[in-house]
């Protein structure tokens, strides 16, 4: 993942992604996923290209991108840790766990550690209510977390 891409690059690489996926039915979300996978975020320069190729307006694409919290408008850290903040996890001590993770990392939600190692995000239900409290690290889910488990998770991402 190259974090220093010029806007010209973004346009060209976006165009490649759009061309490959535009024949799908409902191609916008898959395209945005692929763009986020490519750049680590959804660069605003990509939006007009997507709009033009899909016969949409810039506004429409912007509306979709901003609707989904998963699409970022700037790059995240090397790891992304998402803590579930929904009802079941809260009832199983999720609040205290969140505070603990924040203090371990020294950051708040939506922030990235100064060394760029990890970004902390809230998420509203991972579908793991039976294993609450739950978290997701780089796409992998972790359940029945306690103080030790989160310390291990944090140690893993800081390594």
């Amino acid at each position, binding site marked *: 993942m190259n974090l220093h891409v010029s806007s010209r690059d973004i346009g060209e690489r976006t165009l490649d992604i759009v061309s490959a996926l535009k024949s799908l039915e409902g191609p916008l979300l898959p395209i945005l996923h692929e763009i986020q996978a490519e750049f680590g975020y959804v660069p*605003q320069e990509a*939006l*007009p290209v997507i*709009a033009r190729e899909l*016969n*949409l*307006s*810039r*506004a*429409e*694409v*912007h*509306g979709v991108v*901003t*609707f989904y*919290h998963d699409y970022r408008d700037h790059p995240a850290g090397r790891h992304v840790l998402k803590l579930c903040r929904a009802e079941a996890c809260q009832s199983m001590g999720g609040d205290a766990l969140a505070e603990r993770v924040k203090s371990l990392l020294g950051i708040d939600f939506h922030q990235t550690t100064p060394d760029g190692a990890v970004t902390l995000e809230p998420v509203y239900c991972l579908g793991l209510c039976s294993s609450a409290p739950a978290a997701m690290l780089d796409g992998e889910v972790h359940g029945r977390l306690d103080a030790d488990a989160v310390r291990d998770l944090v140690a893993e991402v800081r390594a």
Partner: protein
Amino acid sequence: MPLVPEIDFGTPASRSEKMVTLTIDGNEITVPEGTSIMRASMEAGIQVPKLCATDMVDAFGSCRLCLVEIEGRNGTPASCTTPVAPGITVHTQTSRLKDIRKGVMELYISDHPLDCLTCAANGDCELQDMAGAVGLRDVRYGYEGDNHVKARNNGDINLKWMPKDESNPYFTYDPAKCIVCSRCVRACEEVQGTFALTIEGRGFDSRVSPGMHEDFLSSECVSCGACVQACPTATLTEKSVIAIGQPEHSVVTTCAYCGVGCSFKAEMRGEELVRMVPWKDGQANRGHSCVKGRFAYGYSTHKERILNPMIREKVSDPWREVSWEEALAHTASEFRRIQYQYGRESIGGITSSRCTNEETYLVQKLIRSGFGNNNVDTCARVCHSPTGYGLGATFGTSAGTQNFDSVEHTDVVIIIGANPTDGHPVFASRLKKRLRQGAKLIVIDPRRTDMVSSPHIKASHHLPLRPGTNVAIVTALAHVIVTEGLFDEKFIRERCDWSEFEDWAGFVAEERHSPEAIEQLTGVPAEEVRGAARLFATGGNGAIYYGLGVTEHSQGSTTVIGIANLAMATGNIGRPGVGVNPLRGQNNVQGSCDMGSFPHELPGYRHVSDDATRDIFEKLWGVKISNEPGLRIPNMLDAAVDGSFKGIYIQGEDILQSDPDTKHVSAGLAAMECVVVQDLFLNETANYAHVFLPGSTFLEKDGTFTNAERRINRVRKVMTPRNGFADWEVTQNLAKAMGLNWTYTHPSEIMDEIAATTPSFAMVSYEYLEKMGSVQWPCNEKAPLGSPIMHVNGFVRGKGKFIRTEYVATDEKTGPRFPLLLTTGRILSQYNVGAQTRRTDNIVWHEEDRLEIHPHDAELRGVRDGDWVKLQSRAGDTTLRALITDRVAPGVVYTTFHHPTTQANVITTDFSDWATNCPEYKVTAVQISPSNGPSQWQVDYDEQARQSRRIAGKLEAAE
């Protein structure tokens, strides 16, 4: 005089013919199936509280205020999204509903500023109305928590608050007042079809966003104002309302810009215009408008408007302000002197397509009865005269065959040489709506216009032909239809002359007209042409819309005939959804043609050589009318250069800027002894005028305009003419000064005279228009309700006539010296020569004319984007800045002609249509080279213009 009331039914009307009966609050009501409960209630006079619903857009169901209870059903469904059902019993006011509504309103108000007294929407706010309607008395939730209302929360910056966006010159966006009802977003999508707005974020973060969180001006917004009209609060508000306050009365009138002829309510405070709001009952626009009609009226009070008559001996003298009496007496004596000295034929006049039917009628009457000749012409000469000729020859009438509503029934549309999103924006919006419903589109245009590809619009075929090859393409389409047996034999046998068809079919079937044979010539791949022809012939209701890209060619009339042939061959005439539709340029160009503005035709397109017609007017006017056609505009100018034509009365047209070959026009004008210009401003033509008569705007007079669908719309006076007289009064006073005994006291009397003399207007009167709203001519005993669609049971001329269309290349050819083809057009924000729109804030969108050039051609010549380039043709040269774009094909360059300093018509040649002399604006061979700045011609011209605009006793020149 109150505001013109308009009922908001909440959701659009259903088109179903099946009726459903239900009971709402004890009232039995019958409505078409598919109608929403909200609309059904409103039709019964019961207003269900609502915020997110309005009848210009589809129901959305987000505000949760319009909930109702239905007996036997669970819950409280939203009345806007719930359709009626037979026999149901609906209650709109129950204690349960009242509680819910109060709760919902309380939440809305908890994130809305409470500055109602100083708010621009005070008195016109649906949120305020609904708070009143639901009886909101108390808001339990304070502003301490998250809100969008306050810039600072407890001293901290409130990140949710956004400042007002004032970037658009005509309206403001205040996010703090937004209730996120999405009406603006939906209006932009459904009504205008631009999709410039969205809701960004979700939940409490939801905000209206132009483009990608841009300001309105830099977003995709085209400033049509549909969002402002849809907004229920002060979030989107006209700046004029903020400045002036709420209007107290309104008058329905007709827009004076393009040929769509939108109906507006002019909302007034006294004699001050507060805003223009498109009228939902307007049958051309159905409640929509564009940036020009809604907002660009500031020219009417612009400081450069001339309000006093002026005369001068020589055009090198400064102007001298004089009384009306002196100006008119001077004009009359000059005209009489010239006629005495040089003969009766030595003077003439030009009627205005910007003025009303009544005014146009008077000008041609003045010329025919006062000047005693037929030297009258109009700007249609340079735009749609080939339409008159071509459709007259094939169908028998010189006008479009459909109303605009017809587009709602169209399945395949061909657009040739027209750019409706810029030239006829409200029609474009209606067309786009139909395309989004699934109709197919074929665009024949050298440029990739917005109709070819824009959000939710994609043409099935774009044929980017070389300028000047229209006839070849249209004939090739016919070739495919005939050789592949796709023509409608039944229609042709019934409606047309079969042997004429056979002759024509044999002609187009010749191999030299095949798409393959003409590919080299037109540059359009043969397969695309074949695909387009098959689609049009087999895709259902086929309609053809065309513009000046068809007519303004040396073979303009031939292309119009070719288009008519296509429509007849495919049976696409005489019912909704089909037809041949010229998109006429000016608000009243149809009317000015109808009113006898051509040198060979009396009102109603009757030739001057026809004794019976002449007899009607001779008896009424008490004069002898010449049976010889008079001079056309180019002939007048030729005759002036030759010394036999010496005086001209020009009402509301700027021929120096708009007509081709500027140098020839200026030489003609300079050779005349009395040039009389009647206009709002010292236009370019006035640089050569000896008498200037100030004109009045459409806001200052009564009359009628006839739009592109032949619809006669009323224009109503909302303010006193600032120059003292409406244009028809000026013409009448000039006629009186010339000794004619005219005694019209109101334009309705002129219309009565038109109706009495012109069969297609026989039933038209102001009283009748008052009753009907508007009518489409012919409107007479045979068609008392007017004629939305023509040629329904047969062609006006009897049998439709197929005519061969031989392609003849224009004499204007590219070569080594002039290798590129220049074509011209216009842009959304500016209108024609720009005399009006340049004097409004519309200049923020288009402050200069740019030359569009393909990157390949630009690179060859070392031209970069924004560089000054010299544009040179055989006729002359000018300079302007380049705009590099692949919208134009290699070998083609394009510019607009809205700014006099550009002088695009210095470049255009004097080639013209073989039948009507309509100039060939659309094809000029040119060369381009880098340049440092304005050409010598531009420098000289500017100096001459500055000199000629001096007014004695005033320090500054008027422009």
